[in-house]
C-alpha cells in the first residue's frame, strides 16, 4: 500500500510536468511502477464501473407462473410440431412438459433448487448426449443462466466457458442473447418477441454449429 502511495505521489508530480518521463530521468524501476499504477488505477476504474452499473434484466417469464407455447422443432429438413408447458417460479425453479400435437407427453423435466429431475423421459430420448443438449438449451431459453452466471459487464454474463451477450429493449426486457464459447465463436442465439402488452409472445433458439432450432409461440 505504501508503494502505491509512493507511485501516486510520483505519478502526480510528473503528470503535470511539461517534460516526458524519459527526459525527467526516471529509472526503469520507476517506469515499471508508473505502468503498474496505471494498470491498478485502470482496473479500479473499470471495477468501479461494473459495480456502479447494476445489470438489470427483467425476466419475462416472471409475469405469469405458467406459460403455454406452440413449439416447432426443426432439425435439418425435419420439422416436429407440438406444445410446451412451463411452470416458472424463478430462474432456479421451473418445470417443463414437451408434448406432441395429439397431446402425448414426450418429456417432463424439472429444475428444482439446483437439481435436475427427469419426471418422464422415454428410453429413446433418455441418452446422455440428448439430455445434455436439452438441458443446456432449456437453461438458456428459460434464463436459468441469470442465476448461474456472473456479469462481466453490463450486458455480458459469464457461465462456465460460455459468454452470453444480452440485448434489451427500452424496458429492460431481453430481446436477444448470443452464446459464444471461450474462443468467441457464436454457438447459439436466442430471440425474444413481445406483444403490445409487453408479454412474451415468441422465442426462437437457434444453434449455429448444427441445423437445430426451436420456435415457440405463446398461446395466451
Amino acid at each position, binding site marked *: 500500500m505504501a508503494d502505491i502511495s509512493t507511485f501516486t505521489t510520483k505519478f502526480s508530480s510528473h503528470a503535470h510536468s511539461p517534460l516526458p518521463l524519459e527526459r525527467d530521468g526516471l529509472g526503469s524501476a520507476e517506469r515499471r511502477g508508473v505502468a503498474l499504477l496505471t494498470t491498478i488505477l485502470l482496473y479500479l476504474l473499470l471495477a468501479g464501473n461494473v459495480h456502479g452499473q447494476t445489470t438489470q434484466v427483467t425476466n419475462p417469464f416472471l409475469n405469469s407462473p405458467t406459460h403455454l407455447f406452440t413449439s416447432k422443432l426443426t432439425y435439418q429438413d425435419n420439422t416436429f410440431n407440438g406444445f410446451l408447458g412451463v411452470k416458472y417460479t424463478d430462474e432456479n425453479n421451473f418445470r417443463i412438459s414437451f408434448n406432441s400435437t*395429439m397431446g402425448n407427453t414426450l418429456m417432463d423435466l424439472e429444475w428444482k433448487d439446483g437439481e435436475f429431475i427427469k419426471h418422464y423421459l422415454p428410453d429413446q430420448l433418455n441418452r446422455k448426449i440428448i439430455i445434455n443438449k436439452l438441458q443446456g438449451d432449456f437453461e438458456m431459453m428459460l434464463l436459468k443462466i441469470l442465476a448461474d452466471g456472473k456479469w462481466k459487464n453490463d450486458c455480458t454474463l459469464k457461465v462456465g466457458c460460455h459468454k452470453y451477450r444480452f440485448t434489451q429493449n427500452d424496458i429492460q426486457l431481453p430481446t436477444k442473447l448470443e452464446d459464444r464459447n471461450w474462443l468467441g465463436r457464436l454457438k447459439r442465439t436466442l430471440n425474444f418477441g413481445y406483444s403490445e402488452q409487453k408479454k412474451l409472445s415468441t422465442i426462437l433458439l437457434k444453434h449455429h454449429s448444427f441445423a437445430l432450432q426451436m420456435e415457440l409461440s405463446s398461446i395466451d
Partner: protein
Amino acid sequence: MKRYFFFFSITLLAFAINAQDLTPAKNAKAVKDAFTKMNASTKSFSSDFKQTKEFSFMDRPLVSTGKFYYQKSDQLRWEYISPLQYVMLINGDNIRIKEDGKVKTYSSAVNEVFKTVKEIILGCISGEILNDPNYEPAFYESDKLYQVKLQPKDKQLKEYMKEINIFLDKSSNELSYLILKDGSGDITKIEFHNRKINQSIDASTFSKF
C-alpha cells in the same frame, strides 16, 4: 349449527353421487355388447372435437379443437384447427400427415409405430380395440355412460400409453369421449361434439388436405 349440518350433508351427498358416477359394471358382457352394437351400426362418424390436455403440475389445461371424420373400416381424417394446424389422413395402410405446410407419408404396413397408432385410433372409434388381445379390458358404467378401460399389456407400448378409456353414451349408443393416460401419467380428454352418424362423407375428405 343446523345450517352447517345441512351444507355438510349436501357436500357429502354430492361426493357420494360423484363417486358412484362410474362403477365397475355388474354385467361386463352388456357393456361389451353395447360396443359391439356400436361397431356394427356405425358406417361413418364425423364430429367436431375438443381435446383437453391436463398437465400434472399446472392448473391450466391445453385445449385444442378440430374436426374428425371416420369411414368404416379404415379411413380417417383427424384435423386439428386450433391452436396448431395439423391433419392426419388414414386411408388403408397409407398414413399421411400435414403439418407446417409439409406432407409426410408413412405406411402402417411397414412402420410399427404407425401401425399401432392406426390400430388404437380406428379401434377406439369402431370399438374393435375391445377384441384386441394386447389390451387388458375393464368395464364400468353409470346411469348415462358405459366405460371401457384398456391397459396395454406390451411393456414398450405402456411406456407411451398407460390407459385408454372409451366412453359410450348409453341412450344413443354413440362414442361420447375418450380419456387417454399417457406414459407420464398426464391425462388427455377428447370430446366429440355435433356427432353425425352414418351420414355421407365425401371420399376426398380422406385423400385431400
